[in-house]
């Protein structure tokens, strides 16, 4: 074993969480080994059709990450493998890995797929969840990374056809399992989850009735790459269903089966599946969701839930389905349930989708034993509120669904967070084991005529289902300077990147155009591809024929096809004029600025300091702690004040952290790697600091209710006020009524505030603990105790806390009747109005955005959501990034969340920041202004207009001309627009290029009109 610490990390699990952790580590100077049991990476997300709440295509947003992980010089993918043994300690582990045989030589296989075409065996396709067949030699899905085939020896008949057809001689029938030993400094566990086995819930008939499918099978049915090409069909007879039922909590919230917890994501994915099914089915489709509580607790989730009801007409029935039977004649299903009016009903559906919960992977005990980590009673990895990313073994971290059921953005945030934790223990080893990516020498194309290749994406059926892609390809072929055009199922997949590179060589292309989705997400991927083929990355351009075409003209295929042609033509016209650009490099100031000194801000600052970076931490209040100061106890039992004390001490004593209390950041200028900010200190003085990144952790505030007599009657208070009273021993009551969703889920603020249900349960339990005879009523819309919090909901109910549902139409009424506090509400089970006379009414007031957000957003030039929280770069995959480079986000500034979630995000922001701070120099965007000195008249208009002071005047041959300071130029192009002699212009958006686009986009339209 090597001596000292090792600058490498093992990531177990290649789902979206594992991939994110690997990318963050590899991008900040560490070597990563990623081990996955399956033959390719991608995990469950690769099987999903769309993602909520944006309906983004799952594969489309995941594919760039798959490709990035696959091509990263510092990530080694060890697929089809498992961890066998572990020795050593944090900083220096030795891990033994078993690489199971693929029977195909990974080095030789080029993924051409001829073997699978010729294989005579029909085996079961696990990617499509057994709904279709595949051959015995296979890849899991077309975008698989690595794209290497595997032989399923259980199905293989040994006919040797594949060996005969394989041109690469990659088939090795006698290949044996092998063992390898890795030396790493830290380990990150991201083995994900597996869906609950619906067969165990035998009353729902899964496995017996063909038309009862699981939610993950339904994802495959919805997917264009699925068994029916994205057309929703019933498995029994291939008919299009007209009526689908979704049944929630299958294998979750179920005491009988022992899975007492809530799986946290199923409500939202079912709503999504219902919406997408309605979009995919051309005829009328009725979707009904049978649920206990709709747990749409995440950012913008409730707005999505509302749209499902109002726009899509999805029916929601609050009922636990008793059983399902089949009509054998039709294959239809009879759903037996008790209606909201308490009467038993039977309703017929063509198809039933079971929303199966998440559980730990089946051999997780073995993994836990091998690694020496503890599992909790649900077989998930044990973690604590204040250390949500740490397992019971030092140096071994956890992220994603393995620590508790969770959805994608939380898994991604945890993955980055776990990466930060791993970075901290091996920080001194940064950069020691990595290779620098080498690109081929750039081809000089200046003397060549433009030779353009056009690649047009079907995006499954996202584009191809509406736009007639082959017609657009034929059209593109006829455009001037286009020498090659083709269509792809997914242009962003790994095999297409390879194809693009091949075509660049084969046709000697010197410009590449991709018509697919938006350049805002996918341009970096394709630029990298053309760069790997020896072209300057700026000889690339995109046409957005999905987000701005097929998705917004879903009912006009002809018009959408014409529009796609216009957009391709316009972009090809621009591509003809594209010129190579150089990426300027800038030095990075390895210092962070953290705005906000609550638990998120402090954690982020500490995580950066633990990696050796200097941090400025600015807090507006006179003391650190933020929201956490007001939290006195937790559901899970830990003492938050003790932790706060420890955290504050750690921050104050850390020599790398400069704390400014009673201070505000008043000005931020500069750019990624090189910010300059002004902090107004408590003394009123201003201090200027230089830093490379900004982390926004400004938190949120409690809503001050205007309703239910709050502020008028002292017996009406918020949960926080109650908590404080309880903690100080000042609370005594015999009867308490709590009202949920005050200031949330209404017209003004349509979204859920996430944490109030947990707060109410926590305080209700505390009241019961102090006085078991006290009556506590909780009036709720949905009880959203997601994940393991469900356990406490159950406990509260068992201890006699009474939960009563209310609806928006019948909100509770609070009155002061001659000094008596009265609450009147409708009791849905008794079906009558009930009046209580409680001692106190407790309002679960929403957590709302910090009013200061607007100022900070304007100062940093980052966006806010409609609700007023900060809007991250991408809701699913970039939860703590902003679109603006070098600015990150964490905690309640993002949206309301629990402490452990804030800590995970704070660690994530630190990891993302470290990908910048760890670099000495940063390669900047090459889109900057440049001056033609011959044309420049030295009028200084550009110098005056430039908002960044990026233009200075210089003398050249006795003449004063403008000169661009590239590191300061941010590429807005304002100068070029104002220049009277058109001497200065913005690269990649030159006047000629834009004018060519304008002419081209209109040209053909006119022809078509005549």
């Amino acid at each position, binding site marked *: 074993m090597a001596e000292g610490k090792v600058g490498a990390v093992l990531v177990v699990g290649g789902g979206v969480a594992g991939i994110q952790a690997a990318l963050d580590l590899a991008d900040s100077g560490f070597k990563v080994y990623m081990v996955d049991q399956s033959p390719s990476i991608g995990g469950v997300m690769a099987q999903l059709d769309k993602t909520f709440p944006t309906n*983004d295509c799952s594969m489309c947003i995941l594919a760039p990450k798959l490709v990035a992980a696959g091509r990263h010089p510092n990530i080694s993918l060890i697929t089809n493998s498992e961890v066998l043994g572990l020795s050593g300690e944090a900083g220096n582990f030795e891990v033994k890995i078993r690489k199971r045989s693929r029977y195909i030589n990974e080095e030789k296989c080029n993924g051409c797929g001829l073997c699978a075409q010729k294989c005579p065996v029909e085996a079961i396709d696990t990617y499509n969840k057994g709904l279709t067949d595949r051959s015995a030699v296979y890849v899991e899905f077309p975008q698989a990374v690595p794209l290497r085939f595997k032989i399923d020896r259980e199905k293989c008949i040994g006919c040797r056809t594949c060996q005969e057809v394989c041109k690469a001689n990659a088939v090795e029938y006698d290949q044996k399992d092998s063992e390898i030993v890795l030396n790493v400094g830290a380990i990150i566990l991201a083995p994900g989850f597996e869906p609950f086995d619906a067969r165990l819930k035998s009353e729902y008939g899964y496995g017996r009735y063909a038309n009862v499918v699981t939610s993950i099978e339904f994802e495959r049915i919805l997917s264009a790459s699925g068994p029916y090409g994205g057309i929703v069909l019933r498995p029994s007879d291939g008919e299009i269903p007209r009526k689908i039922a979704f049944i929630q909590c299958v294998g979750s919230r179920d005491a009988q089966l022992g899975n007492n917890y809530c799986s946290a994501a199923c409500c939202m994915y079912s709503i999504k599946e219902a919406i997408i099914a309605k979009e995919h089915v051309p005829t009328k489709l009725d979707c009904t969701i049978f649920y206990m509580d709709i747990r749409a607790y995440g950012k913008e989730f409730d707005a999505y839930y509302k749209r499902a009801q109002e726009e899509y007409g999805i029916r929601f029935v609050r009922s636990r389905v008793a059983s399902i039977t089949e009509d054998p004649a039709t294959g239809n299903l009879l759903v037996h349930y008790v209606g909201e009016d308490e009467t038993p009903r039977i309703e017929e559906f063509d198809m039933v989708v079971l929303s199966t919960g998440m559980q730990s992977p089946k051999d997780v005990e073995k993994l836990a034993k091998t690694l020496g980590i503890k599992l909790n009673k649900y077989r998930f990895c044990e973690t604590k509120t204040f250390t949500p990313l740490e397992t019971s073994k030092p140096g071994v971290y956890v992220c994603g669904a393995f620590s508790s059921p969770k959805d994608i953005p939380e898994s991604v945030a945890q993955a980055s967070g776990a990466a930060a934790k791993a970075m901290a223990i091996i920080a001194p080893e940064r950069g020691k084991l990595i290779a620098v990516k080498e690109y081929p020498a750039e081809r000089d194309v200046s003397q060549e005529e433009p030779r353009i290749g056009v690649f047009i994406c079907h995006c499954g059926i996202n584009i191809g289902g509406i736009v007639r892609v082959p017609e657009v390809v034929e059209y593109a072929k006829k455009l001037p300077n286009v020498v090659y055009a083709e269509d792809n199922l997914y242009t962003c997949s790994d095999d297409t990147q390879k194809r693009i590179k091949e075509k660049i060589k084969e046709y000697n292309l010197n410009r590449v155009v991709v018509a697919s989705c938006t350049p805002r997400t996918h341009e970096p991927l394709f630029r990298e591809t053309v760069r790997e083929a020896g072209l300057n990355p700026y000889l690339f351009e995109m046409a957005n024929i999905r987000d701005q075409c097929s998705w917004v003209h879903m*009912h006009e295929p002809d018009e959408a096809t014409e529009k796609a042609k216009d957009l391709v033509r316009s972009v090809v016209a621009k591509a003809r004029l594209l010129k190579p650009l150089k990426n300027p490099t800038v030095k990075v100031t390895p210092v962070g600025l953290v705005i906000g000194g609550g638990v998120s801000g402090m954690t982020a600052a500490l995580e950066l300091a633990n990696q050796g970076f200097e941090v400025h931490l600015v807090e507006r209040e006179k003391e650190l702690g933020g929201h956490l100061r007001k939290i006195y106890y937790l559901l899970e039992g830990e003492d938050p004040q003790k932790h706060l004390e420890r955290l504050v001490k750690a921050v104050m004593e850390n020599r790398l952290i400069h704390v400014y209390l009673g201070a505000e950041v008043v000005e931020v200028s500069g750019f990624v790697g090189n910010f300059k900010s002004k902090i107004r200190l408590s003394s009123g003085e201003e201090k200027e600091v230089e830093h490379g990144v900004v982390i926004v952790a400004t938190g949120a505030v409690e809503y001050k209710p205007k309703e239910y007599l709050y502020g008028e009657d002292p017996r009406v208070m918020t949960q926080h006020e109650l908590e404080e009273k309880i903690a100080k021993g000042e609370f005594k009551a015999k009867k308490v009524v709590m009202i949920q969703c005050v200031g949330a889920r209404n017209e003004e603020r349509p979204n859920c505030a996430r944490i109030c249900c947990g707060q109410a349960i926590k305080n209700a339990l505390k009241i019961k603990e102090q006085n078991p005879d006290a009556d506590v009523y909780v009036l709720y819309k949905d009880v959203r105790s997601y994940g393991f919090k469900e356990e406490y909901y159950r406990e509260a109910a068992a201890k006699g806390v009474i939960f009563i549902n209310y609806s928006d139409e019948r909100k509770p009424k609070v009155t002061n009747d001659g000094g008596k506090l009265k609450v009147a509400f409708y009791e849905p089970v008794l079906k009558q109005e009930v009046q209580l006379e409680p001692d106190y009414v407790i309002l679960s007031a929403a957590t709302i955005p910090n009013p200061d957000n607007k100022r900070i957003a*304007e100062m940093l030039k980052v*966006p806010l959501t409609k609700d007023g929280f900060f*809007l991250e770069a991408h809701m699913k995959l970039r939860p703590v990034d902003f679109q603006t480079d070098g600015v990150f986000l964490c905690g309640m500034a993002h949206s309301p969340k629990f402490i452990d979630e804030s800590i995970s995000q704070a660690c994530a922001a630190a990891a993302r920041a470290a990908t910048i701070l760890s670099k000495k120099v940063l390669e900047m965007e090459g889109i900057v202004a440049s001056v033609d000195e011959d044309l420049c008249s030295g009028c200084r208009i550009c110098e005056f207009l430039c908002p960044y002071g990026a233009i200075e005047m210089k003398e050249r041959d006795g003449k004063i001309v403008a000169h661009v300071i590239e590191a300061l130029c941010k590429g807005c192009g304002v100068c070029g627009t104002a220049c009277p002699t058109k001497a200065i212009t913005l690269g990649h958006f030159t006047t000629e290029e834009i004018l060519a686009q*304008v002419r081209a986009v*209109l040209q053909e339209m*006119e022809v078509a009109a005549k």
Partner: protein
Amino acid sequence: MRESQKDFEPKIVGFLCNWCAYAGADLAGVSRIQYPPNIRVIRVMCSGRIDPAFILEALKNGADGVLVAGCHLPSDCHYLSGNFKALRRVTLLKRVLKDFGIEPERVRLEWVSASEGDKFAAVVRDMVEQIKKLGPNPLKVMEEKK
């Protein structure tokens, strides 16, 4: 004439800034908000990059309408103040357009943020309606008469 007016499908060119309006248009897509297929978008980094010459070129080449969209005033602009520059330029251009015999309403300036997919779709819908009422670009009509 009446008949052709009824079938008239305006051609609109949209210049959208990358950070707000273009992101808003993408959001309309991911949210599947439907709007008429009359607009063709050209992406620029900032609304401050939009030269009145681009707008004139579009009108000269037969666009029936031009949409310029950027980040909200006063301070959403990713580049600090490009939106103000767009405001000034478009305001001035619209004054000049009248002298060319082009209705200034054909050029529209809107602020659309990255979270306003619905607004982007609404703007396009409204603009298509408005330009249908105005009829085809007079420059194009003149050209055809020749």
